Every structure is written in structure tokens, then in C-alpha cells.
């Protein structure tokens, strides 16, 4: 049985990086999530919640044990379409774990300042800057204020 509490091996990390590049591929001047060097961030995230560690280990173990993947010499030996097929098969086979695994990659990717810059999001904490919004304008109530009270008396 795979050990879900184990640390990742170097070969796990190579596979994870390759998977991440498929999950969040390159865009504009940014490479894919794996090529951006975010596999380590994913691994760090697993320390924050046991379900994360369990999902990451489960997905990587399943990939390494997939007979069709093993027959070709492992995930990184596959062509891109074969890699995608393997991931889709895994998603169908273990949807709950795979969902958490995808969450992990998204959390790592969308917490990165390079990504924030590309999507136009202000990096950093929400405070103390907050956001500017126009103050409430009572004139927006013009229509609804004309309605007669309709609450039910009791």
C-alpha cells in the first residue's frame, strides 16, 4: 500500500511538475505552473491541511501505479496527449481526491505575485489599503421606495 504520510521523492517532484504544466499551462509570458517552480509551493501547502497531503500522495501514487503509464516508462515518458488521457482517467477514477489535488495547484498558482500581475490583481494583504467604492446614493431607492408596505401583519 502506498504511504500517504510520506514525503515526496525526487521522481514524485518531477512528475508533479509535469502534471502542473498540463493543469495550468503557459499563457502570455508566463510558463506553466510547473515550469514556474511552484511544485515546491504545492508540497508546502500539504503541511497546512491533512486532506491536502492525502490527495497529493494519492494522485501521484495512482499515476505511478497506472499500468498504461508504467508500460510506457512512466508519466514523463508519455506524449502530451497520453499524459492528458492519463490525467482524465485519474480524474474519473478518483474525483474527490483529484478535485483537492487541482485545488492545491490552483492555490499555489493564484497565490503567486507573477500571476497576480498578469491578471491585474493587487498582490499582498487586503489591509490596510482596501478598495475605493462610491458612497451609497439614496436616489437608487426611487423606484422601490414607491412601493406600499407589504409585510404581513401578525
Amino acid at each position, binding site marked *: 500500500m502506498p504511504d500517504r504520510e510520506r514525503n515526496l521523492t525526487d521522481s514524485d517532484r518531477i512528475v508533479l511538475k509535469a502534471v502542473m504544466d498540463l493543469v495550468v499551462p503557459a499563457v502570455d509570458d508566463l510558463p506553466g505552473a510547473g515550469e514556474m517552480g511552484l511544485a515546491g509551493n504545492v508540497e508546502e501547502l500539504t503541511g497546512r491541511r491533512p486532506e491536502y497531503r492525502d490527495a497529493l500522495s494519492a494522485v501521484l501514487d495512482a499515476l505511478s501505479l497506472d499500468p498504461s503509464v508504467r508500460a510506457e516508462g512512466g508519466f514523463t515518458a508519455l506524449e502530451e496527449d497520453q499524459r492528458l488521457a492519463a490525467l482524465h482517467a485519474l480524474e474519473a477514477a478518483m474525483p474527490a481526491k483529484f478535485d483537492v489535488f487541482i485545488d492545491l495547484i490552483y492555490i499555489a498558482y493564484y497565490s503567486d505575485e507573477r500571476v497576480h500581475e498578469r491578471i491585474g490583481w493587487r498582490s499582498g494583504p487586503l*489591509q490596510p489599503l482596501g478598495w475605493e467604492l462610491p458612497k451609497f446614493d439614496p436616489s*437608487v431607492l426611487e423606484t422601490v421606495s414607491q412601493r406600499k408596505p407589504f409585510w*404581513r401583519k401578525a
Partner: protein
Amino acid sequence: MTITHEPTDILILGSGASGAAVAWRLANSDFNIVCLEQGRWIKPEEYPNEHKDWEIQARTNWAFDPNVRKLDSDYPINVDESSIDPLMFNAVGGSTVHWTAHTPRFHPSDFRVKTLDGVADDWPLTYDELEPFYDAYDALMGCSGINGDPANPPRTERPMPPLPIGPDGERMAKAFDRLGWHWWPSDSYVNSVPYRGRNACNNCGNTGLGCSRGAKGQTDVAIWPEAIANGVELRTDSRVFRVETDSDGRATGASYYDANGDVNFQPANAVVMAMNGIGSPRIMLNSMSDSHANGLCNSSGLVGKNLMFHPYAMVSGLFDDGLQTYKGALANMILSQEFYETDPDKDFVRGYTYQVARSSGPVSTACGYMFGRVPWGADHHTEFGRRFGDVTVLGVIGEDLPEEHNRVELDSKLTDSNGIPSPKVFYKLSKNSRKQLDDAVENAETALNEAGAIQVLATRFLKVAGWHLMGTARMGDDADSSVVDKWGQAHDADNIFVVDGSVFVTCAAVNPTPTIGALALRTADYIDRERSDLKS
């Protein structure tokens, strides 16, 4: 060996929305008061919004769900038999630390459900009786809003003007106007202007993660400083496991574990349960004694029964005009109560509120809390770009009705870190609630399409949505069919009071905290007026 403290007049268990209100009110009347809180003070700089990883913290150590968060102050909850997961926070301020502070009131009809609609039970009090306490709690916590709402009775001038509803709120409001449907700026315990020494909100967005500016009505900033200044002792890291009683069944105090794991006993003339709709029945059921054989004040057998959540659905509209819908308090824009009251032409009773909400940051967008998960792979970036900052949500709050089989029990195996039995929650969505949600989803789609949404996505039922915990020690005039009377005083013991959402007879279709706070102030007012015997 038990550490025994000096006796006090009033012992309050829990420092959240209700416990703080009772402490504040009675401290002004010279009662000696001790409050035991199992959590600790959270420092403003600890709040996730002060940290760049706030979206990660929202999913881990600041998650709404204690079974995910797993802090030392939390207790695990067995949810194997529940279709909704209970949510809460355990610290000074209780769940007001992480709530979004959307604060509508019950309607007058909500107190007369049996009379008007032939279901559940009437409350032993009326809206009119509670109204002055609503006003007092609004003033204490700080309410932003505007009077004149045609869906509700007239009310006093709100302490602050409404929060900005933003361009996304205006877009939704205009759609409701075109449909001829009700809407109104939400009452919110979030400061639109500086109030009682606390800052105004700066629209940072995620009100659910604690507010380091002190702009949100959390009892740790809105109530406790004044209560403590008036002499209340708030004792943190104090985890109550049992209310002690004498041979007559009257409370003598409470036993608890301190931070070192030592057992303490706090004697008191009266005990006030304020640990929320799951925490209070948990400790009441764990306080069996010769004089309370079925658990504290449980001669009716109703402690833990009639658990109500508000069943939630979420209908999200995707727009294409780049309004940056993550700007502004998350769930404090406008509401619609067009379908609030019972409609005889529909196949369900009671109704629902739409709480219009904003979107959030990039992680939430990608992982899909508001509009489903963004697909991975080749289309990922295109889809993310369509959704980020362009989603408005109609949250549906349906009125649940009390059913005895929905309940809280003590788990036979699961415990917290002190070995206190955990609660086990049993909850099934009723047919009436399901029909409410279905109707609400259909109407929400109409509204979002009218607003110009290019795509609408409905989540017809939210599992992680047990924000509101109610009904498990209900109030009533009859000791056989209720746990406490209309003052929150237990039928079985005249010096035990329950003041949290447990006492709700029905739950209306609105967020419950203003009603919890008003009821707590009313109970405290009663103790002050009628129970001078509880003063040493």
C-alpha cells in the same frame, strides 16, 4: 485536584453574540459577572486580511468549518448523519469574529407561524415586544442601513448610513426594479462611517475572516472592552464541560478545564448558556445529574432536538462588463424579500430571502466557490479570465422548520482534546425546504438574467453552510414542549438561562444574529428587573 474560584453572581458560558450582550447589560447594573470562553483573544495583526496568504488561510487555519480548521480552541463535530456541516468560531467574540455581519431582522409574521400558516409553533413573544431590544443591539454593535423598507415594519433611524452597494449592487437593484421585485440596502453590522471609536470599513472584501480595522461588529471590539471596563471578568482558555447543580436542580456553577488541563470550578448564583445552538445543548446533555437525569433542564426531552439550519442555495451570475465584483464587503450589499412571506399559490409554506453577494480573490475564483471550479487544461486561462471579478451571487436563505429528528446528541466516541464528548449532528433537509430552494433558484435565474448575466450557474444546495445554529433549547410557555420560558429562563431551574440561537422556536428566513442579540438583551433586562435575588 479541582481549583475552586470565588463565587460570582452571574456566570456566562461563551463570549459571542449573546454572551457578550448579557455581560454588557448586567455589568451596568452592578451584578458580579464572570464569563468563561474556551478560545482566546485574537490579535488584530493575526487576522488573515493582514497577510498576503489570506486566501490560503481562509481554506485552512481560518476555515469556517471547525473540522477543517482544527485549532486548539475548536472541538470536532460528527457530521456523518448531517446533510449540512455546522460552522462556528471559538475565540473571544465567538462566531462574530468570522461572520459576514449581514443583519436583517425577523418579520412580525415570523413569530406567528402556527397561527398564520398552521406549521411549527408560535413564539411566546411578539415582534413588538422584541423591537426595543433590536434597536439596542443595533446601536451596541453598530448597524449601517436605511429605514423605509416596504418589506419590513418601520424602524428607528439606523445608527449609520448604508454601506456602498457598488456598481454591482446597483446593477442588481435595477434588475429587481424592472421586475417589480422588492430590494433594499442590507442592514449590516459593518461601519459605513467611524462609530463608537471604531473605524469605517474600507471595502477590503472578505468580512468573513475577522476585521483588523475593528470596522465589523465583532463582540470582542464592539462590546467586550466596555463590559470589561465595567467590571466583568472574561476568562479565556476555559473549556466548560459541565454545569453543576444541587439536589433541587438549581445551578451551583460550572466546571471547566483551563489551559493547563486542570479542572476548575466557578461557583455562581446563576448560569447563562451562550455557547451557540450546538455548543449549549452539547454541554447541557453532558451535565446529567441526579436532579437532571436526562441532561440539564431536559425534562421535556427537547434539549438538542429541533435543530434548524438555514438551508442555502447559491445562484451565480457571470457578467462581462468588468465591474471588479470583489470590491466591497462580501455579503453586505442588498437583499430582496419579494418571496419572504407564505404564498398560497405555491406548494410550500414560508419563504426565503435573497442575500446579494460579491465575488472574492483569484484563488476563490479558480477553486470555484462562487461559480464552480475553473476547468484545468487548455481552456483554463480563458475561463478564469471570464470569471474573475465578474460574478454576482444571489444567496438563498430559506426558512427551515423545526423537526425533532434534526438534532444534536453526544457522540459515543469522538471527543475534544480535553476528552469532552463531541456533538453528533443529525440533519435531513425537509421536503418543504427543498421546494423553497427550488422555487428560489428558478426566480434567482430570472433576476440574474434580467440583470444581464451572460451565464447563470445554480448550486441548488450548499453542504458547507451551517452558519446559523438554532432551535435546540426552544422557548415556550409549556414546560412539556419547550426548554426555556419567554425570558430564556429554564423551566426546570430558575437560575439557569439560555440566550443563544438554541432558544429559537422557528428560524425565519434571515440571518439570526440581531434576533439572538435582542433576545439576550431582553433576558438580561429581565434578570436585572426581576431577579435581584441573584445578586450577592
